[in-house]
């Protein structure tokens, strides 16, 4: 193990390490802690200059105010409406493409695979004008569907990379054996490969959920009104309205951050497995 375990350096080292850990963590999360504290600080605290001390009262009313005086509930619902179908669509499409690229050997296999990989890295701006124009032409501009379709298509790149590498690592003998038995190809996919892909599907779902929930660029490009805007784009406009009302901005930020955070803690193992795929050989 590297570095040498603190236990091997004696009890003093262990104690020092355990004191250092929380200090390091507080320093690391300082901006987050500051905002979390501000979100429950009564407005009077901010007015009287109590910016860092413990809040004089636990002002849950900030959150109530955010919900009552802004469409943040609507924004969060919009985010959910966009995120869930995107996760389903991108994962479904990439199960298919991943299977095709991971199992079959044909000449353009690598070319198509790397087209997906490369497409996943391009800057969004090169897509922006045509995608926006296309959405306008198709009547999908400023609608959930327009945003969802684009997200599904774009995320298919990353998901294909992920699924294909996952399927590549499955034992090939399973598929070969089924073929010798005369099992149809689509049945091999449905009954043999798909059940084995469950961990990959779980990992990808959490990752894509987080990516799409946190997407800001496409939400600003493809939606304009509070009826369809997701929470990230909504937060931008609210930030403009709430100038210097930091207790509201903070409460709104915490609310917007909450769903992916819950997702992360609930599905931590899958999340990390998805993110670090390829980090070890």
């Amino acid at each position: 193990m590297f570095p040498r375990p603190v236990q091997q350096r004696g009890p003093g080292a262990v104690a020092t390490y355990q004191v250092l850990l929380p200090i390091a963590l507080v320093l690391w999360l300082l901006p987050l802690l500051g905002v979390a504290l501000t979100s429950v600080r009564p407005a009077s605290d901010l007015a009287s200059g109590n910016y860092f001390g413990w809040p004089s009262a636990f002002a849950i009313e900030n959150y109530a105010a955010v919900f009552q005086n802004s469409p943040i509930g609507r924004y969060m619902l919009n985010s959910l409406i966009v995120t869930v179908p995107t996760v389903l669509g991108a994962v479904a499409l990439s199960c298919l493409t991943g299977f095709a690229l991971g199992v079959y050997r044909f000449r353009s296999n690598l070319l198509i695979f790397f087209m997906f990989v490369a497409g996943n890295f391009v800057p969004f701006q090169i897509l922006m004008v045509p995608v926006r124009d296309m959405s306008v032409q198709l009547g999908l501009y400023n609608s959930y569907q327009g945003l969802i379709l684009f997200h599904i298509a774009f995320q298919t790149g990353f998901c294909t990379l992920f699924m294909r590498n996952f399927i590549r690592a499955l034992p090939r003998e399973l598929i070969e054996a089924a073929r010798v038995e005369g099992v149809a190809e689509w049945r091999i996919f449905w009954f043999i490969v798909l059940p084995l892909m469950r961990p990959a599907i779980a990992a990808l779902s959490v990752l894509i959920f987080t990516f799409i929930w946190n997407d800001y660029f496409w939400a600003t490009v493809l939606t304009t009104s509070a009826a369809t805007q997701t929470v990230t784009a909504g937060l931008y406009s609210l930030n403009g309205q709430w100038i210097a009302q930091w207790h509201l901005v903070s409460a709104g930020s915490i609310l917007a951050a909450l769903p992916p955070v819950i997702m992360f803690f609930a599905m931590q193992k899958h999340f990390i497995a998805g993110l670090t795929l390829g980090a070890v050989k």
Partner: protein
Amino acid sequence: MTRAALPNARAEAPPRSWWRANQQRLTPWLFLAPGLFMFGLYVIWPIADSFWLSFFDWDGLGEKRWIGWGNYQELRTDPAFYTSLKNNVIWLALYLLAVPAGLMIAIFLNQTVFGIRLYKSLFFFPFVISQVVVGLMFSWFYAPNFGLFYQLIEWITGRGVAVLADPDLVTYGIIAAGLWPQIAYVMILYLTGLNNVSPDQVEAARLDGARGWRMLWYVILPQLRPATFIAVVVTVIGALRSFDLVSIMTDGGPFGSSRVLSFYMFEQALSEYGFRMGYGAAIAVVLFLIMMVFISGFIWKMVRDEREGY
């Protein structure tokens, strides 16, 4: 492969047997069709279309007017373009600090003491949060007069600094905000990598007297190469894609000094001062070509690994 070569025992209707004979060849294409269609429509074709549009003068609604290299010629003398380009270079250079910083935190956290799992998760926290929220958090952090950072500087030097209002500092302030989640990401890549470092090699090297930096450099880092590769890829792409933080924290200001290419493109194409889609497309093409240099390098290495692996 063997399947198709097997003799067909039962005589079946012609379409069925034709399918049987060709199913191995056709199945991958049927599976690829929906994904390829969507990806082609929303990713591949728009790239080509953006190149095409960059030769036009177009407000997004009216008639497109062909102006040849006009947009690119305008870019050559556009000071805002150079500011954005310069900021992109700064972003790229400083963002790469996330790689060593993430490695350092990973090494710090790679211990087995009580509660360490929770600590690792909490250190990873910033990556899970939306960049919009990260941007708001750092805006609060830097806020003049009462921001934590402002007060800290005031306490040390006697004079606070309003980072986001200072044209010379603003880009660095935004990059620091971007580094926060990026370091967390790199950290988790390295933690996984460290977990898989061969204990035998470490022990052997230790017996040979390797320790500290030498151990890290000669024994650990070579084994972490896959993690380092991914860390560099995601960091470079992240740096060149930076948009959210600039938009949220400063909107490109003050006086356009914190613009990056991705933001400047957006501003030109969809700003309140009029839509200049063609000019925006030209900026996007430049950004795309810059990124292609890196993407090609990454893909080239991945193709090489792929050929060796199979």
